């Protein structure tokens, strides 16, 4: 599973730290997500999608 978190973050002008605070995780988790080293829980994926006002499948790309 790939994701477009970095792209959306740039679009919304958010730092990793800002996004981490908004979805209540540590910055390291955002780093892992962007490097595709971690697949988030459904709740975290939902929270991230809500921050970016998008659907989950627009941010997380299932192969």
């Amino acid at each position, binding site marked *: *599973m790939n994701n477009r978190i970095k792209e959306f973050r740039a679009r919304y002008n958010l730092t990793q*730290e800002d996004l*981490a*605070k908004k979805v*209540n*995780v*540590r*910055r*390291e*988790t955002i780093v*892992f997500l962007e*490097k*595709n*080293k*971690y*697949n*988030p*829980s459904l709740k*975290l994926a939902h929270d991230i999608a809500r921050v970016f006002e998008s659907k989950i499948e627009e941010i997380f790309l299932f192969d």
Partner: protein
Amino acid sequence: MKRSIILFVLAALVLIATGYWFFSSSTKFSLMDIASFGVIFLVLVFAVVLGFKRLGSAKRGEPAEDELSKKVMQKTAALSYYISIYLWLFIMYIQDKVNLETHSIIGIGILGMAVIFTVSWLVIHFIGIKNE
């Protein structure tokens, strides 16, 4: 924050106990003792790094623990337990072949488990968790 402080207190206690052992001992240290100090020091460094990571997160207003850190810990615990079984099996196999006292063998086993936990954490932290 609370857990970070507990981690620091535990690390300090281990450091004090090890320091007491080191400075109060009148006998000359063997290679095994020096190796034990090295392993204890490594595990302490690991605990302090974990503590600082948690404190850093708390200072930035982030949770000290989140779903990733919990999953890393769970996977580390499972993996290190699995590997530790083989360590104890190996220790049982060699105990008759080496001239060591029972308390030394148990000490080696415990320190070995601590090293396995630390290495497992580093490996899992490095490769990440894909859940696939």
